[in-house]
């Protein structure tokens, strides 16, 4: 009987940072599309992670996300990034309606000693694919956003990190008594990303 070996790919810190930051870019686009923050006609379909993904064609959002992912990649390589949160707020009242929380655990040994890890690209892609599917399915339990909304991105970093001038200190923009749903996670063996969405569960006596 022939034994089958699974091909393992060598993953470096830089490679892992690129995978995670790229994932965040696609996840952000997917959230903005699926939650109707931007009109659907401003998105274009591309194939990524073996799935049809939607990317914004809005130049402003495109440049914002491009700058964001570049900065995240830098922080991930330095092992300084703990969490990235995409916050959806009411445009009229600035009330926080949803928080998409991407929590990151970094293998400190890789950062300190520069060693690499092994994991197949296919396996990582499958894990990311599962998260993307869940983002698309989340409309089954999330509240309808029936008012114009804006989004913001919060980055939780180590205290000693140098903050670029394009970033400002922010409050955590938390939701009081939120409903929380843990989505799938993915692991590059260097960075482990846990995904969670928390949302405001509207009550009947609220305006």
């Amino acid at each position, binding site marked *: 009987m022939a034994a089958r070996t699974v091909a393992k790919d060598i993953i470096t810190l830089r490679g892992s940072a690129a995978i995670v930051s790229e994932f965040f870019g696609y996840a952000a686009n997917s959230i903005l599309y699926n939650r109707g*923050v931007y009109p659907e006609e401003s998105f274009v379909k591309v194939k990524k992670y073996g799935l049809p993904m939607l990317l914004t064609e809005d130049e402003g959002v495109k440049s*914002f996300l491009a700058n964001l992912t570049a900065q995240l990649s830098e922080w991930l390589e330095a092992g300084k990034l703990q969490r990235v949160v995409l916050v959806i707020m009411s445009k009229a009242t600035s009330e926080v309606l949803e928080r998409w929380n991407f929590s990151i655990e970094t293998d400190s040994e890789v950062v300190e000693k520069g060693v690499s890890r092994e994991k197949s690209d296919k396996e990582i892609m499958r894990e990311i694919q599962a998260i993307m599917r869940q983002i698309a399915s989340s409309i089954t*339990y999330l509240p309808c956003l029936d008012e114009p909304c804006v989004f913001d991105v919060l980055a939780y970093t180590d205290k000693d990190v140098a903050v670029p001038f394009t970033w400002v200190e922010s409050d955590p923009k938390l939701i009081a008594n939120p409903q929380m749903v843990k989505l799938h996670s993915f692991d590059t063996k260097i960075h482990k990303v846990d995904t*969670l969405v928390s949302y405001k569960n509207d009550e009947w006596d609220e305006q």
Partner: protein
Amino acid sequence: MAEAEMEKITTIDPETEFLASKRKNGNEWETFKENVRPLKRGRNVNLLNHALNSHTDNQLKKSLVQQRSKLIQAIQEYQGDDPLLPWIQCIKWVQEAFPPGGDSSGLVVIYEQCVRAFWHSERYKDDLRYLKVWLEYADNCFDADVIYAFLDANGIGKPHSIFYISYALHLESKNKFKAANQMLELGISRNAQPIEKLKAAYRQFFARSMARPIAIDDSVEKLAPTRSFGTVLAKGENRAPLSILNSNRDPSAKNDRTRAAPLSIYKDSADTGDTDPHKPDPSHSWHTLGARADRNKENNAIPGKWKSYKVPQRPGTRVGGATPSAFIPVFVDEECQDSQSKKAEGCKSSSLKIRQEDDKELKRETELLRKNPLRNFPQNSLPR
């Protein structure tokens, strides 16, 4: 050190705590996503997963139906000072426990019986919870016109902006733009709360009106409702690039779709109308009628004895029998009548009780209510 650690634990945010606890939600919501009707207020995922398991577990399905019966019983037995509360609890539970919605959930029947129980109550006229039940009922009916007219005529939900916004959106969906505009203006003039939300809705309505290519005047509005065949998505011009210093990405500038222009009707210029559509085409005429046997082929069946044929009887139908929905009028002694009238307003008459109907009956009643939402209301209460 221990003190500092304790401080850290107490100030931990709920999301970090949730992730650290390694709690699992279950993924039934993902597996059965096609069977879930999104709720405006969102859903509790644990309840949703529990309800979705009933697709594969008959015992669980039975327990959900039993729980619904208990909640209905609780409405009838409620003795507290807020008789609307058990109705709200029941509605919320049914919405969560029957994710596909649909007729078998009994939700439409519960909405109707709830709104009918309190429509004359001064106490609940301005209650936001009661108004929301009405609006959800309207969402589930084929034509909500009659419901909004009823609410307007009876002054239900007057102080709440959500009433004017919902009514205006409904009117706008029927191309009654002038009436929608008047409704929003009426809400603003009445200072309906929260006024900011109402003003924001008015601004959005105004923006949509400006984007509309052709102004529709009243004469057109009064015609039969127009039908749109598909949606034309207009691709707006690219906006000026946003600076990364802008912490909020604001999509609203592009968020309104432009209304499709009227369809132009294509006329074929090649055909000049020479052919008369009523003239018979000689190429397809019958030149022969065929043999007698061909013409009489329907009459080939050999007649048999009628004695051997039994007319099938329709089981259970009797002329003049009581229909399932008919009620026997209950005689009330005059002495007892006084004590009965002193009961709290929350106690419903027998006609208001939610009957423990089987699925077929429930579906039938739901269908009737969708077509005529106020069918069980007294005639004199309906708007003229």
